[in-house]
C-alpha cells in the first residue's frame, strides 16, 4: 500500500462546489490524508519541518487546487518555495522525495476544448502545468498527468458526484498500486479513461 497525501489549496472552499465534493470524496478513504494548507496556515507561515515529515511519510503526493490563472493559489507556491528545500528535496544530498509519485488534481472553469491551440486559452493543460512537472523532475519524483475537472461553472450536482466518485477511485487505485505510471502517461489527463488508467 502506498500512502497518499493530498496537499490541498483553496482560499474560499466554502464557495467551491467542486473542490468541496472532491475533498469530501477523498476524506474518508483509508490511507489517504487530506492536508488543507489555507486551514493550517491562514497567515502563510508554513511549518517547514512538519511539512517535510508529512511528505516523507507518504508515497504519493497529490496537489489539489483550482487552476487559478493557469496555475495554483498563492499558498501552494509559498509551500513549494519553503518546503522543497535545497539539500532536502533537491541538490546532492536532497533525496527525500526521490521515487515518490506526484500529480495535480485541478478544477478549471474553461471547457476541455478551450485548452487547445485554436481554443480560447491557447495552451494545453499539460503545457501549462510545466512548472509543476519540472519541479517534480528536479526532485526526482515520478510525474503523472493531472486529474482535471473541466467546465466547473456548468456542472450539475449529478456530474459533480460522478467526478467525485472518479477521484475517489483514482486515489484508491494509486494507494493500491493499480496504476502503471508509464501507461498512464499516454493520457493527457487521468480521468479521460479512468478504467484504462486503473488497469481495467
Amino acid at each position, binding site marked *: 500500500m502506498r500512502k497518499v497525501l493530498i496537499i490541498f489549496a483553496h482560499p474560499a472552499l466554502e464557495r467551491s462546489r467542486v473542490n468541496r465534493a472532491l475533498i469530501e470524496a477523498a476524506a474518508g478513504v483509508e490511507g489517504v490524508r487530506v492536508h488543507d494548507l489555507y486551514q493550517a496556515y491562514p*497567515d502563510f*507561515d508554513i*511549518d*517547514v*519541518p512538519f511539512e517535510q515529515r508529512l511528505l516523507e511519510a507518504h508515497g504519493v503526493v497529490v496537489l489539489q487546487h483550482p487552476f487559478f490563472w493557469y496555475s495554483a493559489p498563492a499558498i501552494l507556491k509559498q509551500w513549494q*518555495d*519553503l*518546503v*522543497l*528545500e*535545497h*539539500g532536502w528535496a533537491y*541538490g*546532492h544530498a536532497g533525496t527525500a522525495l526521490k521515487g515518490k509519485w506526484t500529480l495535480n488534481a485541478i478544477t478549471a472553469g474553461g471547457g476541455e476544448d478551450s485548452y487547445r491551440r485554436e481554443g480560447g486559452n491557447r495552451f494545453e493543460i499539460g503545457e501549462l502545468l510545466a512548472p509543476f512537472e519540472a519541479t517534480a523532475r528536479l526532485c526526482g519524483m515520478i510525474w503523472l498527468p493531472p486529474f482535471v475537472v473541466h467546465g466547473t461553472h456548468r456542472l450539475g450536482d449529478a456530474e459533480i458526484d460522478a467526478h467525485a466518485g472518479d477521484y475517489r477511485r483514482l486515489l484508491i487505485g494509486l494507494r493500491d498500486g493499480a496504476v502503471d505510471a508509464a501507461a498512464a502517461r499516454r493520457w493527457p489527463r487521468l480521468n479521460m479513461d479512468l478504467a484504462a488508467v486503473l488497469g481495467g
Partner: protein
Amino acid sequence: MHGEGFFYQAFVYLLAAVVSVPIAKRLGLGSVLGYLLAGIAIGPWGLRLVGEEGADVLHFAEFGVVMMLFLIGLELQPSLLWRLRVPIVGLGGLQVGVTALTLTAVAVALGLPWNAGLAVGLILALSSTAIVLQTLEEKGLLKTDAGQSAFSVLLFQDIAVIPMLAVLPLLAVGETRATASGGTSWIDGLPPVAKTLVVLAAVVAIVVGGRYLTRPAFRFIARARLRELFTAAALLLVIAIALLMSRVGLSPALGTFLAGVVLANSEYRHELEGDIEPFKGLLLGLFFIAVGASVDFGLVASRPAVVAGLVAALLATKFGVLLVLGRAFGMGTDQNLLFSFALAQGGEFAFVLFSFASQHGVLPVSVTGPLVAVVALSMALTPLVMLVHERLVAPRIGRREGEAREPDAITGSSQVIIAGYGRVGSVIGRLLAANGISATVLDHDSDHVELLRRFGQRVFYGDASRHDLLEAAGAGSARVLVIAIDDPDKILQIVETAHRYYPHLQVLARAVSRTHAYELLDAGVELVYRENLDTSLQMGVDVMRAMGVRAYEAGRRSRLFRRHDELGLRELAAMREDRPAYIRRARQQLEELERILTADRLEADEQRDAAWDTRTLREEMAGGAER
C-alpha cells in the same frame, strides 16, 4: 411550636422529593411521576406523614403554576404569540368546546341533570398545564409541532377559566349559597360595565408598567449590586401581579404570563428567569407531591370499578376529541398522537372549579368527591401514559419529523454566548455581528446594558458566573462561550461553572495577566487569550519596521515569537506546579522572567524559512555541482 411544625412539614416534603425523584429519573419515569409517587407515599394512604393540610399545601403550591407561566411568557416574544393565534383560538377553542359538550353528553347519559352535566363537562375539558409542560420540557418536546399545539391549547384553557368562573354560578339549581365567597375581590358590588373597565385597566397597567416602569426600577435595583435584592424584586413582581389579578377576578397565571410576554424583550429577561426558575421548580414539585397526597384512595378502594371506569372514560373521550382536532389542523400522525396523549388528563384548575361549583350549589359533594379523585388519578397517570406512548407507540409510528423544524422558535437563543461586553467583548460581538453570527451577550453593568440596547444590540443584564443565568442564556444548546469580562476570579468561576454543567461548550477565556493565564490553563481551558499580547506584538512589529526591517519579515518574526511564547506559557504553567512553596513570590517572578528571556534567545536562532536563504545552494554550486 408552630415553627417546628413548619420545619417538620418541610422536612417530610423535601425528603420525599430528594429520595423519589432521582430514583424515578434513573428508572426513566421523569420527575413529575417521581413527585407524584412521593406524594402518594407520604400521603394519608401511604406512610401518613402528612394529613389534611395536604389540601392547603396544594393551594399554596399552585403558585408554582403561576411562576411557570411567567417564565413561559418570558420566553415568548410577542411576535411569536401573534403567530400562534390560530392554534390558540382555533385549536384551543374547539378543544374546550367540543370536549366540554362530549363530556356533558357522557355525564347526562350517566344520570346527571343537564346543568350539572354541563358544569362537569366544562371543568373536565381543562388539562393540566403543570404536568404537560413540565413533562414535555423534560423530554425536549416543547418545540415540536405537538408541543407548540399543546402549549396553545393550554394557554386557551387558562383564559377560558375566567368565563367559566362567571358561568358556573348561573348553572346552579335551587338556592345559591355563594354570595359570601370571593369576598377579597374589589369588583364584587360593581355593575358589569365598571367590572369590565377595572379588568381592562388592570391588564393595561401590566402591559404599560411592564414596558416602561420595570426597566428603570430594575436598573435602580441592579445598581445596588446585591444579588438577593434582585431575586426579591423578581419575586415581588410576580406576587404583585398575581395579587392584582385575583383582586380583579382574573387568573393569576394569565396575568403573570402577560407580564412575562411584556418583559420577553427586556435586557433583564435572563436574570429574571434565573431568579424565578428555582422557586418555580420547587413549588411545582411541591404541587405534584400535593396532588399525589390528595388522591383519596379510600374512595377509590370503596368503588374501584366506578373510579377506574370514569378515569378510562375521561382519558378516552379527551384523547378521541384531541385526535380528531389534531387531524383537522393538519398534524402528522406521530405529532398528533403525542399531542393527544399529552393533553388527555384533567387539570389542576378542576380542583378549584369543583370546590367553587359545590359552593355555588351547582354540583353536590357526592359528585365532586369521586370526580376530584378521577382528575387526580388521570393527572398521576399522565407521565405513565406518555411513557407508554414514548416506548410502545411512537417507535411504531416512525420518526418525529416535526422535531427538527424551528429549533429555536421559543427561546431564540444563539450558538455563541459572550460574557462581558466591555472593551474586549464588544469587539468580538461586533466582528461576529458584521459576519452574520448572532451572539447572546451577558453583562452585569446595568447602565452599560441600557446604552447598548439603545443601539439595538442584543444584550442582557446578568452575572454570567451563575449557573442558572448561563442556562437561561441557552448554554445548554450553545456551542461556544466567550468569557471577556475583566475580573480574573470571576473568569475562573465562569470556567468552572461551564466545565461542570456544560462540558460540550467550547470555552474561550480572556486572561488578564500571565499568572491568570497559568491559572486558566490549570483549570483546563485550552483557548486562553492574554489581553494585551496582540497589541504589544503589533507595536513591536511597528518598531521593527521603523528600524528598517521589511514589513513581511517583521510580521513573520512577530508571529514566530507569538507561537513560541504560547508554547513557553504552557510549559511554564506545567512547571509551576513542581516548584517548592517556600520560594518567595518576587524570586519566582524574576526566575520566570529569566526563563522567558532565555526561551526568546533560543527561538531567534531557529531558521524556519531556510529555503529563502540561498547560502547552501551557492556553496554547492561553488563546489562544482553539475546542475
